[in-house]
């Protein structure tokens, strides 16, 4: 069933590309229909997979000569991330409702990207996974460069090249693993069981991990993320931060860590407390958490705040992965889901609800607009999203970050301590943005009702209401009832950590 999410999205993209020009309404509804159908399938697959382990969906020989299979399967992690993709797709379409320029092409690229993302999350053949991973690169480029804003061509090119360089590193590792294993298969399970030589894993792991982590926004390879997010049109930033960064993290987990587990072993010597690749990446993750948060604290562009916050939050994912323990990795997957929802929500508010009406993202200019009165919906949506993003209990972020911190504590307490600093700074920058953008100090007295200019910002439209409600609802639901995801993630993580992903 889940496989149809892929086919449906690509079919939708193709139909969109062939739509005659000017049928914008049709294009929108079609995109929404495809996205909703994908979400329904994802939810169905999620529900059907509860309590199940890894389920093979399709297994066909693709290139028999090289042992490449068209192997789609889903375990708990996949199902959760597919669900996330479905949600992000629906929300992304809703917040792209106002695209008037080349609408059908926009949704064609959008759905192609979604299809690629679904594909990555469901592939259990390394080659297939890589194919889908790269498919996702090109639509991103066009989405940003055609429909983007600030320095869009630069940002799009940067994003495309970073992604492509990252995927090149992955490809090198993939080729090397394939050649070294001699197992004549590119199946993830088969390769994981090939017990590659430790010396090989020692260099292949950092290569592949870094390759994927570039897309996950790992410091210092994160610089594509803020510029890309800022330049992208809202729907695309939602996807970028929401699911595309998750592709990287997912690749780190599914490919780098499960194929080269021994690459995480200690080197046998240590320098300033760093004695293995695990330490290296954990430290980079922690730096990313703190650095992203600190940089977000001093941004003058509202969207850049969110952009850097993504870097910070994705640091938690990477840190969680590097804990290598049940709770930390589970937390990382939870954080992927949580950040996917929340980043989408934040970008939607900043990029669509606010920017499309005010045409400025400068905090200094927004301060003068008294948005909390003129766009109360945006203000309160941002309050909720911001609270969720700063990790307040009751929202998805809290459980996720807590698990990561607990997991990290068990390995290296100072990771937790440093990441905790990141959380505190996270509260600060979210709060600063909130204050400046929406609740700047303006007297609200009964005779000070802003009658003038009340209408020029335009009313909130139904797709915006729906999208915000969807994302807030999901974040709240997951925050209040985390077991709905944890019960699915935990067995999968357990199996993955036990080795071989079996």
């Amino acid at each position: 069933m889940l496989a149809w999410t892929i086919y449906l999205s690509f079919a939708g993209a193709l139909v969109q590309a062939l739509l005659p020009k000017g049928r914008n309404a049709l294009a929108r509804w079609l995109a929404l229909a495809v996205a909703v159908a994908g979400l329904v399938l994802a939810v169905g697959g999620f529900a059907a997979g509860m309590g199940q382990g890894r389920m093979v969906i399709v297994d066909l020989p693709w290139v028999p000569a090289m042992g490449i299979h068209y192997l789609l399967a889903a375990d708990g992690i996949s199902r959760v991330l597919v669900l996330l993709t479905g949600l992000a797709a629906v929300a992304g379409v809703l917040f792209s409702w106002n695209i008037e320029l080349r609408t059908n092409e926009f949704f064609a690229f959008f759905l192609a990207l979604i299809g690629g993302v679904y594909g990555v999350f469901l592939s259990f053949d390394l080659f297939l996974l890589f194919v889908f991973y790269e498919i996702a690169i090109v639509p991103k480029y066009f989405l940003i460069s055609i429909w983007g804003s600030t320095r869009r061509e630069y940002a799009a090119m940067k994003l495309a090249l970073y992604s492509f360089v990252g995927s090149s590193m992955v490809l090198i590792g993939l080729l090397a693993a394939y050649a070294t294993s001699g197992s004549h298969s590119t199946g993830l399970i088969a390769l994981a069981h090939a017990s590659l030589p430790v010396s090989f894993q020692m260099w292949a792991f950092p290569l592949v991990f870094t390759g994927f982590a570039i897309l996950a926004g790992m410091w210092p390879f994160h610089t594509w993320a803020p510029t890309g997010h800022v330049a992208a049109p809202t729907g695309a930033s939602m996807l970028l931060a929401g699911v595309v960064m998750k592709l990287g993290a997912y690749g780190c987990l599914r490919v780098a860590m499960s194929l080269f587990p021994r690459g995480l072993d200690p080197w046998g010597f240590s320098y300033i407390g760093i004695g293995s690749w695990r330490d290296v990446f954990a430290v980079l993750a922690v730096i990313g958490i703190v650095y992203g948060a600190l940089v977000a604290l001093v941004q003058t562009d509202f969207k850049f705040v969110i952009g850097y916050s993504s870097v910070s939050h994705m640091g938690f994912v990477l840190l969680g992965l590097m804990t290598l323990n049940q709770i930390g990795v589970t937390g990382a997957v939870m954080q992927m889901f949580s950040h996917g929802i929340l980043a989408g929500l934040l970008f939607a508010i900043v990029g669509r609800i606010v920017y499309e009406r005010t045409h400025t993202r400068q905090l200094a200019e927004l301060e003068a607009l008294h948005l909390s009165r003129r766009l109360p919906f945006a203000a309160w949506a941002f309050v909720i999203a911001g609270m969720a993003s700063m990790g307040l209990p009751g929202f998805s972020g809290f459980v996720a970050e807590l698990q990561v911190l607990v997991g990290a504590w068990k390995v290296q307490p100072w990771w937790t301590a440093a990441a905790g600093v990141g959380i505190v700074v996270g509260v600060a920058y979210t709060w600063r943005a909130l204050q400046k953008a929406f609740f700047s100090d303006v007297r609200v007295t009964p005779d000070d009702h802003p009658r003038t200019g009340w209408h020029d910002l335009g009313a909130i439209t139904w797709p915006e209401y729906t999208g915000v409600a969807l994302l807030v609802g999901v974040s709240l639901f997951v925050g209040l009832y985390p077991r709905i995801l944890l019960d699915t993630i935990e067995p999968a993580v357990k199996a993955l950590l036990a080795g071989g992903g079996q």
Partner: protein
Amino acid sequence: MSGFPILTLLTVLPLVGAAIALFSGKHARAVALITAICGLALALVVWTQLPPDGSIGLIEKAAWAPSLGIEYHLGVDGLGALMLVLSAIVTLMSVDAAHRVHHQPGLYFGLVLLLESGLFGSFTALNFFHWFLFWELSLIPAFFLIKLWGGPRRGPAATQFFVYTMAGSVVLLVCFLAVFLSTGSMDFGHLTQMASTGALDRAVTAHLGPVTLWLAIGVLAGFAVKVPMAPFHTWLPAAYAEAPSPVTMLLTGAMSKMGVYGLLRIAIPLFGHQIAQIRTPLLVLAVVTVVMGAWAAAAQKDLKRIFAYSSVNHLGYCLLGIFAIAIPASGASAVASQAAALNGVILQMFNHGLSAAALFWFVSMMQTRTGGPRGIDDFGGLRKPAPVLAGLMGIALFSSLGLPGLNGFVGEFLVFRGVFSLAWVAASISILGLLVSAVVILTVIQKVFTGPVPEHCAAFPDLNHGERMALAPVIGLMFLLGILPQLVVETVNPTVINLLAHWRF
């Protein structure tokens, strides 16, 4: 325990009310009133359903996120139930008082009800996660209530409030994370059990080294911000003064009790032994809070600030009582003193909530009549133009002062009765605070109600019919509890005995 999840219902009710209020525009106050009345009714039901032996009843338990030790675990004893009743009463008063919210009433009452839900949730939670969730939930609406409906300097006030309480929350979270990492549990009951045998200390020491004392200090600090205790109190006057009076009622009447409640439910049970070790400095801080609060109140001109500092002073008694009992009990008389002090603390929590809320309500009424000014010198001789107002407010003031026959007396008396035998020096110095506090209250009475009537106060309208009707039950309750304190004590005392039995100093 009853099969009906009444505590869940109690917590969810304001949430539902908040959602309805948010979209009901002008009718939001009516919605909020109905919700608050229903909440009070439910809280009273809870009060009657308590187990007679003072243990925790009405337990609801369900798995939530087992890997993190998170459970859905609710339950109340006398302490919790009393706080529920107090929160419900104060919320009702606050909603009643807020009849002049013109700006976005839906949002205002939605936030108030959200705050009530946060109060209910944190007074019933028995798992840290759950408790923390509602603790934070109450913070957010409070922030926005100050930020959006506050006075002229509300921006900095709200910021200060937010930063202080958030910092406190972070410290609490970190400390609990450490406890969880050491013990693998977030359940208050389980942790109390561990603490009473010393296992908690051992687990923490084993996992993290000898940091239990620091954890205790961290947790204390987290709660001290909320109460507030000197030197963490500086956010309070600004916040209380700038917040609209109905919100101040909530802040002082109910939210400050969250801090005291946290000390009793979490800090003392888990870290009683460590707190006993640092009892002397803590007592010093409590005494400072008492005396400083009173002196500071004496120096103010703004009625709201006066009552704000007076609140600091009154909550100082609670702190005094709590820290005083943190000593290994030797002999029956010491145990009796501890029980007396603890009873006093709990009663004081309730009484202060009631009187302080009432006082700010009166300030609110006076302010609507003057159109803004609320300095102590802006009034005079109100006894003549507005005798009912003066009389009723006088009762509330005397209740706050601790006049025998009114509710305030019993709590303070019991606190001092206990503290004198446990820590007589602290008690003696605190008497000073009591005296100054009396001077402050009397000064207010003198300046506002007596003396010549200034021109602008000549036509000061008295309380109208509706206001009298609304105030009557509150004033009645003050008399009732002053005369028949056993109404509360009967239920609280078993809880106190039960609590003391589980604590280890």
